């Protein structure tokens, strides 16, 4: 995989040692960008950033404020909040996609980033699935069953829908986790507002 194809992770963390540790852990698999405060983080942010690791307590802009500006600017990047205290669903309601409690271990960090990338994949699959289901419904409403049976496009469409359904059931473990469930639903509402 070439450098440009790696998913991009942006670390916004005011403690250089901590940021560098995350960087060391992630650099093999991801293109890592680093920012020391909220303003720098927002400067580093563009459409290519897949995941932001955002420290909640920083001098200057707080993590909450940075998140608000990320959402205001319409970026669909996934944002994991890094915090010292264990929060609950409230965090997801606030618009964060995940949270990590300090101190973070390498395995935990990897798992979180992978999970967030998988959620993006799930959303994309679900959007494609919907558009094909809608197409199928339109075809079925306008053509006779005899016409449909002979239509190569229609049969291909049905096949693709079946494949997507399988893919969806295997992504995110088929939504067997509460956080994945809530965060996916929140993504639907966000998309609706835009």
């Amino acid at each position, binding site marked *: 995989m070439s450098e440009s194809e790696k998913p991009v992770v942006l670390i916004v963390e005011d403690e250089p040692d901590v940021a560098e540790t995350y960087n060391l852990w992630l650099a093999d698999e991801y293109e890592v960008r680093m920012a020391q405060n909220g303003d720098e983080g927002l400067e580093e942010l563009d459409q290519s950033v897949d995941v932001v690791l955002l420290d909640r307590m920083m001098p200057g802009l707080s993590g909450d404020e940075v998140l608000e500006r990320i959402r205001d600017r319409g970026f669909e990047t996934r944002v994991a909040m890094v915090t010292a205290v264990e929060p609950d*669903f409230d965090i*997801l*309601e606030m618009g964060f996609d995940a949270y990590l409690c300090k101190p973070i271990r390498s395995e935990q960090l990897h798992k979180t980033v992978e999970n967030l990338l998988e959620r993006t994949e799930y959303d994309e699959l*679900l*959007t494609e*699935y*919907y558009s094909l*289901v*809608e197409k*199928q*419904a*339109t075809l*079925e*409403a306008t053509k006779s069953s005899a016409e449909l049976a002979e239509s190569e496009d229609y049969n291909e469409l049905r096949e693709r*829908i079946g494949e997507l359904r*399988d893919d*969806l*059931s*295997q992504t995110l*473990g*088929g*939504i*067997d986790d*509460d956080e994945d*469930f*809530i965060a*996916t*639903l*929140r993504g*639907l*509402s966000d*998309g*609706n507002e835009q």
Partner: protein
Amino acid sequence: MVMSSEQPKTMYDLSTVLDVEELSSVKPGSGILIAGPAMTGKQQLAMDILAEGSREGEGAVIVSTGDSASDILANYRERVPSVDESRVGIVDTRSEGGRSEDYTNSGTFVHHVSSPGDLTGIGIGITKCLESLHNSGADNGRLALVSLSTMLTYTDKKTVFKFCHVLSSRLDAAGYLGLFTIDSGAHDDQTIQVIKQAFDGLIEIRENEGDRQVRVLGLGGQPTDWSDF
């Protein structure tokens, strides 16, 4: 391979409510759409199916877009006088004052959301209901969402479709049975066709010369013939 509940769980028998062969053994995690014109008893049917589970001690989750939690509970008590109310959870989407939660004196968990369009709030409510029922000892159960038609007036069909798909997946993982009602007269055919695809099966109700008839599609096997109910 479809990754769903690892352990084989007991099938749901709905044929005691609706005498159709295809409903005698419904797989845990199945999502069923109940579609029909207004005033044909869709909600009744969904609640009857839920009540049957409650009589067996299963969990019951009711997501309502119309009635208040207290009305739902009063009605449910009448339906199943023996119900263990700690095994009932309600998501009331017409609450004033945003998201909140409480327990009734009889132990029913109620999650309040201020609008049927608040999908995240509804999702959180369902999650907390499932958790509450699990803590009360119910490890399987049934969920009824009445109705999708109301949700469709708050948000577009694309979002409702995705919501249904994601919720069905979550219920599949929990081994729950899902029942969702939709007023087939309130939406165009294409909308119904699309929404249908988010579910494993369809119970269709129609009125024929004053009689109510029903048929079952999906759930393994060919569409059944129309029968009176």
